[in-house]
């Protein structure tokens, strides 16, 4: 044993597809390869530099292919290499990146390609998530039907004004206009249009809901030596964690799940963060329905309980606010479900690398990527920084 402790992990390449409603021009293999090739190009590496591939996606029913990593081994240059397939519901993109980072941190591999995707146009995601009777009553159509009552509970609990949700949607959709990879580019968006959009799952309106996207996101993770060879600035992983709790149980707090609090606390402990609001410069948060921004602001410790909506209302989470949330436009603008968590992680990395283009938060040194899934029960988060970790 010549080493002690974990190997520092760096993100040296990020690649995304232009997320759209339907990529009829490419196969599933073509979609994932596009993101992987872009990540390799960003890292200035080739397939031969990759030691292992870690791939994630949400339910296989979305494309109608069981364990598609078997078929994708060729397209991702994995033949002769290790390939792992992660599936942790909506948090999977984040979990996949964390599993890949563990391979480097444990010094099992030096350079790993991690990728997550969803090609939702192959099926209907909402009904893919709606369980047949007798597993579930037929009223819970899609994820919105599941989460709307919890949004209502948040509003009741905190007394948040009805308009806060529309502010989040208006912000994220405007941020997406600065992100060339975002799915929704609504150039004529106005707050009035958001507020006038049809009610889908009361209190969630159509414009406060994530789209259904085809897209893939890839990252190249490497060790200290790999980062030293990188010509572009790397993003360093300062902390990462996963937490899970059961779907339903007496005493579960759907508004602010304990697993989310514990996960964030673990990440902050690893990264030495004691005041997340002041010490973190940008947050890419998994907000599939607008109201989840204020809810997660509290759950992640950026606001006191009951105060999250006040940050949103005061413009703190705007791109030019003091805690920008979802500068990329977030899940509300782009949602290839299996990839959405990894896009959050990758966008956080782009921010601290100074590579986020028009949606760059000036001078971002530390950024958080956040993902959740299932019945608000699976959490995956990481915190990346511009400087290498000191411990």
């Amino acid at each position, binding site marked *: *044993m010549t*080493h002690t*402790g*974990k190997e520092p992990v760096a993100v040296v390449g990020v690649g995304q597809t232009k997320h759209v409603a339907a990529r009829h021009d490419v196969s*599933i293999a073509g979609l994932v390869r596009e993101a992987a090739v872009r990540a390799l190009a960003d890292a200035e590496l080739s397939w031969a530099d990759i030691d292992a591939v870690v791939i994630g996606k*949400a*339910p*296989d*029913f979305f494309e*109608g*292919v*069981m*364990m*598609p*990593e*078997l*078929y*994708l*081994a*060729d397209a991702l240059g*994995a*033949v*002769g*290499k*290790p*390939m*792992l*397939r*992660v*599936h*942790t*519901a909506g948090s999977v993109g984040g*979990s996949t990146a964390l*599993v890949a980072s*563990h*391979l480097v*941190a*444990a*010094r*099992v591999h030096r350079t790993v390609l991690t990728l997550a995707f969803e090609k939702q146009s192959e099926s209907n995601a909402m009904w*893919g*998530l709606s*369980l*047949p009777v007798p597993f579930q009553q037929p009223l819970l159509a899609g994820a919105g039907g599941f989460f709307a009552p919890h949004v209502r509970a948040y509003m009741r609990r905190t007394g948040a004004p009805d308009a806060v949700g529309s502010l989040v949607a208006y912000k994220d959709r405007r941020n997406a206009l600065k992100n060339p990879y975002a799915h929704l580019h609504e150039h004529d968006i106005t707050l009035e249009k958001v507020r006038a959009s049809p009610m889908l799952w009361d209190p969630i309106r159509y414009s406060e809901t994530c789209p259904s996207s085809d897209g893939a996101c890839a990252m190249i993770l490497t060790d200290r030596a790999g980062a030293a060879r990188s010509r572009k600035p790397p993003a360093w992983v300062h902390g990462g964690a*996963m*937490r*899970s*709790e*059961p*779907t*339903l*149980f007496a005493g579960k707090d759907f508004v602010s*799940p*304990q*697993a989310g609090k*514990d996960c964030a606390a673990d990440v902050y402990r690893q990264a030495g963060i004691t005041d997340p609001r002041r010490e973190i410069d940008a947050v890419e948060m998994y907000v599939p329905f607008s109201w989840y921004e204020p809810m997660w602001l509290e759950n992640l410790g950026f606001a006191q309980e009951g105060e999250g909506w006040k940050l949103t209302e005061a413009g703190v989470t705007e791109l030019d606010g003091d805690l920008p949330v979802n500068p990329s436009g977030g899940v509300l603008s782009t949602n290839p479900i299996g990839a959405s968590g990894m896009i959050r992680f990758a966008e956080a990395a782009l921010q601290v690398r100074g590579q986020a283009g028009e949606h760059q938060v000036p001078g971002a040194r530390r950024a958080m990527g956040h993902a959740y899934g*299932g*019945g608000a*029960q*699976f959490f995956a988060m990481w915190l990346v920084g511009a400087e290498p970790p000191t411990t």
Partner: protein
Amino acid sequence: MPTTSRYARDVAVVAFAQSDHRRRSDELSEVEMVMPVLHRVLDQTGLKTGEIGFTCSGSSDYLAGRAFSFTMTLDGVGAWPPISESHVEMDGAWALYEAWVKIQTGEADTALVYAYGKSSPGSVRDVLTRQLDPYYLAPLWPDSVALAALQAQALIDAGETDEAGLAAIGARSRAAAAANPHAQLRGAAVAQGDYQVRPLRTGDCPPIGDGAAAVILAAGDTARRLCARPAWITGIDHRIEAHGPGLRDLTDSPSTRIAAEHAGVFEAPVDTAELHAPFSSQEVVLRKALRLGGDDVAVNPSGGALAANPMMAAGLIRIGEAAARIHRGESDRAVAHATSGPCLQQNLVAVLEGEPA
């Protein structure tokens, strides 16, 4: 002390439990099938869920017939207070690999790994066709037995085996399973039967059934505290091959060989091999790749996948069975293997060692 210096930490399998694998389990949900197995494996160590550092499982939504099926079995773990947990849509052997990596990072000292699959609700031969290239292969609906038959015929054509040789593998496996109370097909009297897909007869194919398994991993002194004779994982690696059967030499398994080299299989003799070979012909391929020629190695003393093949768990069971032989003092150095995909496309190899008595 086994020679484990290739990795940061010494990690061992300290407990293993499995269900009694059966053709059907209509009266049990997945969580009801998994829970007793979890309780048994935890009881072996005296650990409680909250004392486990990391939990990881392997299962398939396509077998369960619903999205996010693993969320329900998580309820059986009792994930409260919240736990550090992950899931692979793969055989549980790869969940064990993810957990082993997690322990190697130093972020956990113990891990609970479990896997399960119920094949009885559907036609597993048809279901597995959905695992193939969706553009060029799946539309033809070649099922798992047909693809394995192509592989078996390639072996016969290459002079590597014959139908009598294949029949002997099935007979030996079921005879060995007579001593395994969890196996689905036990005893020498299982008939070789008719052709399923020529040249494979019923006896060359795995039984279809439902089952679950669980393993506990622990590092260093924790492993010694939890188990009288830990099964140290002195090497573990996995590799994948091209997907298209036409792109591969089906009589060979280069991915198994590469994984075995990285796991250190060939650095010393093994006395036991637990091979995840659902079809008799696949044991021929794996023996060649792992250089298991003679009679000095006990191959599949549990009966292997030809005696019980619960999907998504059968690979993890190979690691568990090999470890259990080390726990019992019946093996000092064992190789365990798991596979996934058509015709052995993806393979994992682990070396397990016990300390000298």
